[in-house]
């Protein structure tokens, strides 16, 4: 195997070992009181139907509680379209 690919493989294995060592602190699969599900997520689950008439919690959080993030995410995908257009369209295509 070429030396650079061998060096890449060794780096990947060492990084994998460090990440797997950190898995010790992560919560179990299917735990109900992980730190991610305790602080603001019960409020979203309980009050979504009362505040907005949307049974889907994901849509309510995405478009109402965190609507500002979605606005700039839409801008990001629009900028990607503009960037592709600027890179690849020739003058006579306009």
């Amino acid at each position, binding site marked *: 195997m070429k030396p650079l690919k061998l060096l890449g493989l060794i780096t990947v294995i060492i990084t994998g070992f460090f990440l797997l060592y950190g898995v010790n602190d992560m919560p179990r699969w299917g735990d109900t009181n992980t730190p991610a599900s305790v602080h603001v997520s019960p409020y979203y689950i309980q009050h979504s139907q009362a505040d907005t008439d949307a049974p889907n919690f994901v849509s309510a*959080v995405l478009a109402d509680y965190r609507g500002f993030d979605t606005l700039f995410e839409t801008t990001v995908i629009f900028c990607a379209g503009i960037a592709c257009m600027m890179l690849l369209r020739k003058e006579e295509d306009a």
Partner: protein
Amino acid sequence: MDFIVSKFNYWIYIIMMMIGFYAMIAKRNLVKKIIGMNIFQTAIILFYVSIGAKKGATIPILEAAHHAKIPPESIEVAKYINPLPHVLMLTAIVVGVSVTGVALALIILIYRRYHTVEEDEILRQLS
């Protein structure tokens, strides 16, 4: 053994991440590097979504609630999975699509200029 079995999802996602990482740094074709970046990104998205899973819970849509008035305190939180990682990962998926699109456009421009997409041939033409 319990270390592997109770946290098996993190093991799978870390292996996927390392596969994508290896493809990004060790392959010589530019398109294969972009595919490696996509694999890495998919592993990260799955990792975040799996944090919000709960045992015996259903999808994050309120049952029997279209145009119905349900008081907020009667909803059991443990019956629905956590919607927050799903919301954040929607943004991540969209960013991934954008980056892949622009990266492929740049690869097309490189191909038009150097007539190859292998990294070492490009370096040879540059020097």
